[in-house]
């Protein structure tokens, strides 16, 4: 039995054990199967990483799954450098979050359910990243979507949570529809949907066009854009970003795992995996970069005025995902994956820290917190490191990855590249601003809550703080594997991924690189200082700005009214037509009509028919005679 197969199947086994035995047998020990499984997967992932570093790539088919005419798909696993990196991210961050959940979900009635869903999610995500064909990828894709629905709506008695789960799943469906059509096009073009033949054969189709809904479009661009549809949905880019902030209704470990480190990064993984297709379509690359860039700025501006601590971090995630897509869009896929890897650490850390805070204070509102660093020093310290990393302060992990992206955008020297470089530079200001706004409002100054709450403030138990500390180590030092050559490092990360994603074609002198680096660092520090001024020294300024610039403030606070727009354009007409047409007409009239009408008809008919049986013998005699008469008549004349 090959070792790498255990990586996805250990969590699957944990899911089955938990879902079958959790309610009665395991109860509040339900965390043991899940945690052991994912830690086991992590250990095997590390071993696999070393194997891959030594050059051993695995691309094996386990067994034939579907054979239908010319369509043949096998269940297969591909472990190359990209997969190895993703495995480490998923299992490492996942293990720490599993351990954290032991403390966070303690005493919850659905304890076993939570861990079963977490294990199922881990299984799906691992299948997604180890797939060697598009169908298995789609299987994992849908699996994580379903688990996201389960976990967001975990406290299903709360109406908002149930609605948020539905919203996430339905919005994702829009993206998945495009994704599925993309896979169909791949099959139509290449005759197979396994990665290796597709990526090798892509070069022959450059310049081919295909007739799509009446227009002649470039084949590879079409496929790339359709695949990107799925990424837009899953990674919550515009215009399908609306589900991610609502997903914060789920428990905080869910937000950390799914909506920071793993599921939402599946879109980036998809684009990086299919870099062969994207690379040959300049149109698709530009679309990716622009969508990513606009989402990034858009989300960052909203984050500056939100008051729910989890929502601030959610919009921050949207922003960072946009940055990853920008990197992929300009050709620097390795930089995008690098940022995925560092982002997993500091974003998960931010979420888990926020969970710690919520655990202590009892609510999410940042305006009613304050001065918490006296009561929760470990949480404060680790979140501070995470905020520094997110903001791109030099030295920490986030700095190196973000800098790679900004430099790649500039060095591409294309029109789109310059445009997104400007966007990224503005992000360099916003990100530290809103991150430290959150930190200062929550942890500095005086406590703004009630006395009752103040008595309950406490640091979280060790089972929750130890993962925080471990993640802080990752957020701090994780980027040191990718220090660019200009600063004296070996750029090991990019070199490691080169066999899979290639090397971007950039020209730039070291002097230019230093200049860009210096610019974005300066802007980041300006952002930090401004946050300090607004929220620590002169705290009257934000309120005054909100009052003076009321309309822009309200637009930002209401998320640019996207939800309201979708509600009126999509949701209301659908509900109306469902009620009026499908329920009112089709169900009530047609189906009920048939189901009720047929028996009534039969009853009517047989009611008339039974009167033939009069019980009188001579009547029967008449019938017999008449029958004989007609038969003889028939025999005479029609035969």
């Amino acid at each position, binding site marked *: 039995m090959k070792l790498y197969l255990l990586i996805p199947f250990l969590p699957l086994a944990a899911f089955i054990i938990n879902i079958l035995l959790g309610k009665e047998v395991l109860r509040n020990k339900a965390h043991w199967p899940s945690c052991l499984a994912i830690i086991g997967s992590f250990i095997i992932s590390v071993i696999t990483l070393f194997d891959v570093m030594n050059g051993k790539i695995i691309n094996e088919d386990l067994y034939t799954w579907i054979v239908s005419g010319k369509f043949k798909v096998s269940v297969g696993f591909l472990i190359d450098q990209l997969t190895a990196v993703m495995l480490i991210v998923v299992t490492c961050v996942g293990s720490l979050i599993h351990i954290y959940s032991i403390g966070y979900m303690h005493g919850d009635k659905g304890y076993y359910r939570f861990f079963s869903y977490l294990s199922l999610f881990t299984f799906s995500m691992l299948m997604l990243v180890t797939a060697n064909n598009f169908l298995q990828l789609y299987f994992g894709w849908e699996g994580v979507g379903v688990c996201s629905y389960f976990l967001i709506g975990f406290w299903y008695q709360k109406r908002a949570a149930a609605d948020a789960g539905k919203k996430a799943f339905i919005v994702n469906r829009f993206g998945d529809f495009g994704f599925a059509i993309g896979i169909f096009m791949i099959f139509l073009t290449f005759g197979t949907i396994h990665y290796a033949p597709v990526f090798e054969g892509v070069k022959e189709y450059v310049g081919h066009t295909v007739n799509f809904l009446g227009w002649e479009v470039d084949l590879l661009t079409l496929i790339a854009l359709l695949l990107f549809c799925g990424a837009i949905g899953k990674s919550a880019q515009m215009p399908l970003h609306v589900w991610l902030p609502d997903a914060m209704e789920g428990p905080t470990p869910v937000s950390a795992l799914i909506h920071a480190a793993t599921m939402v990064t599946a879109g980036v993984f998809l684009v990086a995996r299919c870099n062969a297709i994207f690379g040959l379509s300049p149109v698709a690359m530009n679309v990716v970069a622009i969508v990513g860039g606009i989402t990034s700025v858009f989300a960052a501006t909203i984050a500056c005025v939100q008051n729910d601590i989890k929502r601030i971090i959610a919009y921050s995630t949207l922003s960072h995902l946009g940055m990853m897509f920008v990197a992929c869009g300009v050709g620097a896929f390795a930089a995008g994956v690098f940022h995925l890897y560092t982002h997993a650490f500091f974003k998960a850390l931010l979420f888990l820290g926020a969970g710690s805070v919520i655990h202590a204070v009892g609510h999410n509102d940042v305006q009613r917190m304050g001065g918490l660093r006296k009561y929760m020093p470990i949480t404060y310290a680790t979140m501070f490191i995470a905020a520094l990393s997110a903001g791109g302060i030099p030295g920490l992990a986030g700095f190196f990855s973000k800098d790679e992206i900004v430099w790649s955008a500039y060095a591409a020297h294309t029109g789109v590249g310059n445009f997104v470089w400007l966007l990224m530079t503005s992000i360099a200001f916003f990100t530290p601003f809103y991150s430290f706004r959150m930190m200062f409002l929550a942890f500095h100054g005086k406590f703004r809550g009630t006395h009752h709450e103040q008595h309950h403030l406490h640091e979280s138990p060790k089972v929750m703080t130890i993962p925080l500390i471990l993640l802080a180590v990752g957020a701090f030092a994780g980027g040191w594997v990718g220090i660019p050559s200009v600063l004296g490092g070996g750029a090991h990360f990019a070199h490691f991924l080169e066999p899979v994603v290639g090397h971007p074609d950039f020209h730039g002198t070291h002097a230019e690189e230093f200049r860009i680096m210096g610019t974005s660092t300066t802007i980041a520090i300006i952002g930090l200082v401004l946050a300090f001024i607004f929220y620590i020294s002169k705290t009257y300024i934000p309120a005054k700005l909100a009052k003076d610039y009321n309309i822009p403030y309200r637009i930002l606070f209401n998320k640019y009214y996207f939800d309201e727009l979708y509600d009126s354009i999509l949701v209301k007409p659908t509900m109306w037509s469902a009620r009026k047409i499908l329920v009112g007409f089709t169900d009530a009239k047609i189906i009920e009509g048939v189901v009720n009408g047929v028996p009534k008809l039969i009853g009517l008919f047989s009611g008339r028919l*039974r*009167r*033939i*049986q*009069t*019980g*009188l*013998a*001579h009547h029967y*005699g*008449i019938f017999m*005679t008449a029958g004989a008469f007609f038969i003889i008549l028939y025999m005479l004349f029609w035969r």
Partner: protein
Amino acid sequence: MVPLSWYMLLSLAVFTIGVFGFLTRRNVILMFMSIELMLNAVNINLIAISHYMQDLRGQILAFFVIVVAAAEAAIGLAIVIALFRNRATAHVDEVQEMKG
């Protein structure tokens, strides 16, 4: 020689009269007698044809028809007796228990 068609016509006429009687009369005994009439008409037909075909099989069949008619009359009248012991009426319109 009397042509065969005359005999067949005669048989047909008696048969039709038997049918008419069966459909019309309300007295059970008369219904049974109409049935005997029909059977006799068939017998006439059979024996006439057997005579003209110079084959005895028609008469054998007529013989068996008589046998069956006798058996049927016996059983039928037994049923009538059993039925009308309960009802005390010979009017067949009154016996409507099998009315659907």
